[in-house]
């Protein structure tokens, strides 16, 4: 089941991104990079009650890194895109 989701999602990804104008290469990369910070969800789950100390230490580090990826990634993408939008 999980494997099905994986393969289907890859197909969806390929389908929606095949024709992208060069103007948007950088924002797409930085935006998709922010989405890869989804691993934050995994990081949060490691701190469910009952986690061992090692798991807690690793988990909290993972949360910090993933959050940086997410928050920074979306914000930087927004900064870039707002430059594209300004004129027109």
């Amino acid at each position, binding site marked *: 089941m*999980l494997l099905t*989701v*994986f393969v289907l*999602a890859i*197909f969806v990804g*390929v389908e929606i991104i095949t*024709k*992208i104008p060069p*103007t*948007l*290469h*950088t*924002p*797409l*990369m*930085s*935006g*998709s*990079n922010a*989405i*890869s*910070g*989804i691993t*934050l969800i*995994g*990081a*949060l*789950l490691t*701190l469910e*009650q*009952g986690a*061992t100390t*090692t798991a*807690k230490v*690793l*988990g909290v580090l*993972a*949360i*910090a*890194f*993933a*959050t*940086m*990826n*997410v*928050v*920074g*990634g*979306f*914000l*930087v993408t*927004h*900064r*870039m*895109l*707002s430059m*594209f939008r*300004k*004129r*027109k």
Partner: protein
Amino acid sequence: MNPAWTDLAYLVAAVLFILGLKGLTHPRTAVRGNLYGALGMLVAVIVTLIGPEFGWGLIIAGLAVGTIAGLVLAIKIEMTAMPELVALFNGFGGIASTLVAGAFLAGSDGPSDVDTPTLAATALSGLIGTVTFSGSLIAFGKLRELKALKNIRFPGQQALNAVLAILCVGLAVWMTFDAANSILAYWLMVPLALVLGVFLVVSIGGADMPVVIALLNSYSGLAAAMTGFVLGNNVLITAGSLVGASGLILTQIMCKAMNRSLAAVLFGTLQSTGSSDSADDIYANVKSTSADEVAMLLEDAQRVVIVPGYGMAVAQAQHAVRDLATRLTALGCEIEFGIHPVAGRMPGHMNVLLAEADIPYELLKEMDDINPTMDQADVAIVLGANDTVNPVARTDPQSAIAGMPIIDVDKARTVVVIKRSLSPGFAGIPNPLFAADNALMLFGDGKAAIVDITKALEDS
């Protein structure tokens, strides 16, 4: 919360990610797309935090540190340094996946309870995440032009990489099939994967960085997807594989733009081939020019094409370029920008910089659109671009960049090359364009040169 509701909310998040990426592929919907992505993330985080009992203190601490650091980095960064920042964030996503996989192993009731497919996913999550992390840090360093990281190559490098890769995979297989020792195998693999990531990227030349960054982007998505397999979580798998796919497509686009195979990029086969003509011979007839002379040329020009490269980024010359373009337009000159797909250090780098300087994107022409009309340009101004305008790519099949599509500035009536010196670009090969009959060299800092030209135009 009821697991069914949680799953439903994760599904909503996944749909938002898909809409987000789809939005990012069109200029008009891009801002909304990015917001959808961020909203999807918010939904996923909130849903995850509802229900189970957590160690809240640690979660809040982690979120706070990450948020503050992310905000500071994203707000403070100069647009010219965007490639470095994206590389860095990529790496953070990768290491997070490694840490989550490690935490999973440490936190389970005993690794022997974990089934084989999950262990395999844990191994992959750690391996890909770690390679992404150290590779991205090296890419970051290279983009920062750290001298220590320049062109590190040594004999046997490929063999060393192969050995490291085999060891990593071996440890991954071991931990997959020997649950009892999986923690040990995992933490033996991680440092090796760190080293592997370093060596994989350190030998890749700067000109190939757009490809590397796109590829690492893809890896960070795959690592997240693998973490999804570890935790049996659909939203991680969906989002991760979307990113993996998008990164892969960008990688492919970049490779095509350079007429190079992915393998050639990864194994660093772009080397100067010790061309038979020495740089001194090629550059025997270089004509240098002055800002005043260029201004005179531009005054009479009907159509001017500006071709920017990384030099423009380094000199932060995009605003000066905008002023020059405005001035020329006011003089009745038609002005366009020819953008090579791999100009700069990241896909689309030039577009971002020119947009930052408020240059309308209708003026930005892709290589395939500008080339057929290049012979109708009175003046082509090459600003800090090098390999992407080197006619050797067309003329010399032996050259390291043979067959790479270039912007045909040499076909313009006059080419003005603004550059600090005659030094070669990242490909390390001399550029005969600089000595062509119709070429003039304007030596100096990109920004200062453009400002001088604009000033000369205004004075006349």
